[in-house]
């Protein structure tokens, strides 16, 4: 990271005065935040290594923003320890934690022009005017907002405001960036662009980023690791692929993926062939491939939760699961087909282009080729592994 920060792009100006990038680890140890009876964050333990891009993912109201604000020092934990760079910062004021935050609303000061907005944290720290000008010029050039410095926030576009907010955070050179859904106010195209830019920025700066979002695409594409929060409780931490492929529980399974994994409850029954097992679902029974059947047998389960990704479902005349097509979403590069099973349960099928697409209203049968299923405990909803 250090190297990339120094080399930069092809049109680099002299690298004089550059110093080592700053980053620090962040640790949460059993951090709990209660508001009256409501628990926003429930004994959260999480270790973020220095320089890591960690995404806190979860549906709205899951406590992820609260967790971020706890790290920032904007809220005080009811219990638990927060460390930055190994040092407990619970007692430290927000301004002394050396972290910068990018807000969903950008929190730009409407009465100050872009320059003054970016300078704001520098002025608070009594940075000399010359140094200030130099830093603002540097950061605004790198974020391509150098020509906007005299405008007010109201006079620039949403994407530009986003950059100004980033610039204000960067110009301080903090140890940790805290980002609270920074892209959610941008339109879809700009958001995709900014995702890439943020990743690039992280690579160059090497600063730890704690990034909050409810958008699993952002999480998957940007994070070194993803931490999934639900109802204030940490569900799983892991690299994107791991979270995607081996979700820790049915909630994570149903949250990650686009469209997310299908989650179906079913009863276990014998196939009659050897000691094979099948799962009886609302629209029919599907065989359980052997390594999974062995797991079910070992636990002595009679029912379970089956998860299957839409790309692992096929429209198959020989399929054993029947339903009717309720909707087809043609996305160009692929098609999403929603089928309603007999019990009323919807199941999503993802079809690559070229595969025949059924029409809405059509009755179809489905199969799970290759048996790429995930099993979850019917009670705890925890992942069942070999």
């Amino acid at each position: 990271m250090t190297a990339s920060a120094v080399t930069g792009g092809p049109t680099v100006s002299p690298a004089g005065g550059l110093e080592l990038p700053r980053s620090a680890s962040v640790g949460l140890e059993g951090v709990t935040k209660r508001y009256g009876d409501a628990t926003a964050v429930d004994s959260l333990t999480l270790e973020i290594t220095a320089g890591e891009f960690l995404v806190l993912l979860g549906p709205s109201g899951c406590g992820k923003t609260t967790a971020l604000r706890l790290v920032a020092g904007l809220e005080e934990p009811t219990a638990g320890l927060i460390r930055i760079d190994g040092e407990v910062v619970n007692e430290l004021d927000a301004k002394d934690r050396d972290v910068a935050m990018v807000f969903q609303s950008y929190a730009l000061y409407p009465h100050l022009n872009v320059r003054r907005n970016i300078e704001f944290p520098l002025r608070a720290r009594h940075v000399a005017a010359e140094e200030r000008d130099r830093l603002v010029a540097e950061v605004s050039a790198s974020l391509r907002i150098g020509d906007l410095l005299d405008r007010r926030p109201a006079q620039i576009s949403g994407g530009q405001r986003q950059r100004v907010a980033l610039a204000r955070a960067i110009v301080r050179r903090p140890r940790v960036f805290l980002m609270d859904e920074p892209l959610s106010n941008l339109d879809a195209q700009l958001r995709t662009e900014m995702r890439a830019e943020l990743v690039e920025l992280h690579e160059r700066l090497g600063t730890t980023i704690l990034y909050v979002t409810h958008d699993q695409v952002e999480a998957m594409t940007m994070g070194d690791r993803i931490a999934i929060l639900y109802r204030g409780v940490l569900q799983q931490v892991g690299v994107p692929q791991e979270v995607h492929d081996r979700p820790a529980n049915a909630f994570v399974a149903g949250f990650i993926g686009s469209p997310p994994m299908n989650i179906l409850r079913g009863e276990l029954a014998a196939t009659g062939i050897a000691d094979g097992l099948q799962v009886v679902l609302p629209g029919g029974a599907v065989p359980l491939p052997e390594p999974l059947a062995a797991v079910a047998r070992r636990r002595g389960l009679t029912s379970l939760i089956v998860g299957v990704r839409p790309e692992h479902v096929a429209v198959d005349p020989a399929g054993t699961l029947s339903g009717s097509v309720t909707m087809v979403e043609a996305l160009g590069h692929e098609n999403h087909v929603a089928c309603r099973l007999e019990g009323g349960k919807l199941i999503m099928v993802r079809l690559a282009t070229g595969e025949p697409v059924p029409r809405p209203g059509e009755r179809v049968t489905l199969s799970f080729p290759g048996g790429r299923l995930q099993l979850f405990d019917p009670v705890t909803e925890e992942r069942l592994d070999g």
Partner: protein
Amino acid sequence: MADRVPVSAPVSGDRTPGRPAGPGRFGRLGRSLREAVLGYLFILPALAVFAVFVFYPLVKTVILGFYRTPPFPNLPSRFVGLSQYRSVISSTAFLESLWRTVLFVVFTVPIGLVLGLGLAVLANQRLGGIQIFRTIFSSTVATSVAVASVIFYTLLNPEVGLFSYWLGHQGGAGILNNPTLALPAVSVVTIWQNLGFTFILMSAALQGVPDELLEAARIDGSSQWHRFWRVTLPLLSPTVFFAVVVGTIGAFQAFGQIDLLTQGGPNNHTDVLIYYLYQQAFLFNDTGVAAVLSVVLFVILLILTFVQFRFFERRVFYGR
């Protein structure tokens, strides 16, 4: 994104002189204590003024009402309990002054409101030069009670006053010395002086009436007159209510015009509550009676303000 990422000197706590970033400078308790201290520091100036000049004197006023002021100075005042409250409140002088105050309210508030609303409607048209009329209609805001009173006092002068001449009261005692005309005259001055304020208030409210509603009514075929009564006025009712309460409270406090125009005369015919209170307190130095009158005035204003608060609490205070 970045042609070159600024990776300059860290600009943070550890570089800043005079701000130790170490832990425990202020603990969690210390921080909330510091916050609390700061909060009280911020409200302290206002709180101190209120304590000395609002809350303490209010309590003191109530207490003073329990003591009868001696007929001669330097004698001790005597504790009489509630008897002074009873005697003052049941006295003819008090009841008459209260009645005159009510009359004054009745004379000034409704007429002032109708006139202000009328002017506002009149000025709420898209006509060339309307801004000039708006400025003229709000111009009396610039005249204080004293300015308005002195102007009218001179214009009503029985010898040289222009209004006395036009109204056929030249020579003689003059309108302000006429027992039947004095209070109406004071009311006219008050209405005129308040007109600018009422106009501004009503204009602002009128401009808050959404065009869409009026246009919808117009498309539905309702006449201008009908639109005013059925759409505009109902939408204005909160402001009208506000104006009535504020006007009434103001009328109960109206002192300057009485002092400058009639000094309570002729023969007490304009001796409203506040002026009666002023005379007792500062001309006759009867602090006991004045205190009782103050308490009565306070209770009346309290009820009026409470009515206003109850109404606006719903609409405005927590409207966010």
